[in-house]
């Protein structure tokens, strides 16, 4: 496996690789001195470190030697998200994908997803594993307000909007399951690595 190390200021290294979550799991278990925080994204893992404890060079030598572990085997549990499929963009998505609306719903709810990373807003999890036929573009003009609990897709990801926000993803439906609640510990229902399924329900 190839790992590229990219500079990112005095306190972080950006590691570019394929199996981000497997690599993160391997790094976590090594518990390397000076590593303060790991932030996964689509094709990279940001490794933040304390420059008083380690250096980019010393850390880099370790990071190059780490091999991802198989996290599918160790994954525990699965979050099932009940979805009422009545989203405003169902027809547009069906048209772009060349499918019927019923088939869009069937494919979205048949998928087995993994929370790949969070970003955009607190608790906004990018769920990978979306059926390739449903890889559609974002709206050319984002909506100014998308309600919390909206279930949406864009590109290779699906997501549940954790709070009301503007957004350009295509809306397929909604869920009552709160994916983000600052009063809860942990606040995020879908931290990176979580396995997720969607299940169609009627309102």
């Amino acid at each position, binding site marked *: 496996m190839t790992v590229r190390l990219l500079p*990112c200021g005095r306190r972080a290294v950006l590691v570019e690789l394929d199996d981000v979550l497997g690599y993160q799991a391997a790094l976590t278990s090594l518990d390397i001195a000076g590593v303060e925080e790991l*932030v*996964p994204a689509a094709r*990279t893992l940001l490794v933040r470190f304390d420059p008083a404890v380690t250096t980019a060079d010393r850390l880099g030598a370790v990071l190059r030697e780490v091999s991802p572990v198989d996290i599918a085997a160790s994954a525990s549990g699965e979050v099932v998200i009940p979805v009422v499929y009545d989203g405003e963009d169902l027809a547009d998505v069906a048209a772009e994908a060349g499918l019927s609306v019923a088939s869009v719903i069937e494919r979205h709810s048949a998928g087995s997803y993994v929370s790949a990373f969070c970003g*955009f807003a*607190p*608790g906004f999890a990018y769920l990978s594993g979306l059926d390739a036929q449903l890889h559609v573009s974002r709206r050319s003009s984002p909506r100014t307000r998308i309600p919390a609990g909206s279930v949406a897709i864009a590109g290779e990801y699906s997501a549940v909007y954790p709070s009301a926000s503007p957004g350009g993803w295509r809306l397929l439906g909604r869920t009552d399951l709160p994916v983000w609640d600052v009063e809860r510990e942990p606040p995020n229902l879908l931290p*990176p690595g979580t396995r997720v399924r969607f299940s169609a329900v009627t309102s």
Partner: protein
Amino acid sequence: MKLEVVRPGFTTTVQDLGRSGHAALGVGRSGAADRGSFRLANRLVGNSPGAAALEVTLGGLVLRASSVTTVAVTGALCPLSKGGLNSPITLWPGEEFALGTASAGLRCYVAVRGGIDVAPVLGSRATDTLGKLGPPPVTDGMLLPVGDAALGFPVVDLAPRASLPSSPVLRVTPGPRRDWFASPDELLSTVYTVSPDSDRVGIRLTGPPLRRVRTDELPSEACVPGSLQVPPSGRPILFHADHPTTGGYPVIAVVEEDDLDLAAQLRPGQTLSFRPAS
């Protein structure tokens, strides 16, 4: 003890040193934009360095204390109705304390002995204006609770501070996507101007556009404070206190953390440039 907000000024938020360690959940650090000035304000009133204080953009804040207390104002150069900057000021019960309009710099910090004691969210009292976490921005008539967790009384009368440069030069190290740009060193030879649509999320810069050699879409990747992200316009955005945890545009360089305090004091229309960190 409570502080009454008579007038909030242009924009005033509660800030502390932020909520580190939650970026993997999409939660940024947030906290005071000029951390050095923030820490100094707390030191002057005998607070621990991370006690919550007020960040006042451009001034205009008017407060009234319910009982005798000590406050200190640091950061931007701003006239005060009583006392001076970088120095402890005693307020009497019912006395109004006003900040005028800043004449240099952008953000003042008003610390009160005991710290602002609003409820913390994920371990911090900071208002994250992008992530919408923490207390709402300060408004007229708000009563801000003040805690009693102060340390020993401060012994200094005045903390000397360097004056703010009119056109700062910020030190940078190469960013992860420097090689996506045709001539990345143009970043170092350009004098940029701060755009009026700058805020706590990012300082938007105007200047000649940086041209890219790679035009493919960058999959989202995590960012650090100080990242100079370059959107399709080619004009960099300096990610600041409330920056998004991930971004989808290439980062050409990263401003040194120590220089972010200077950046926090940049006003719209001011110029700045970058030089390589040694």
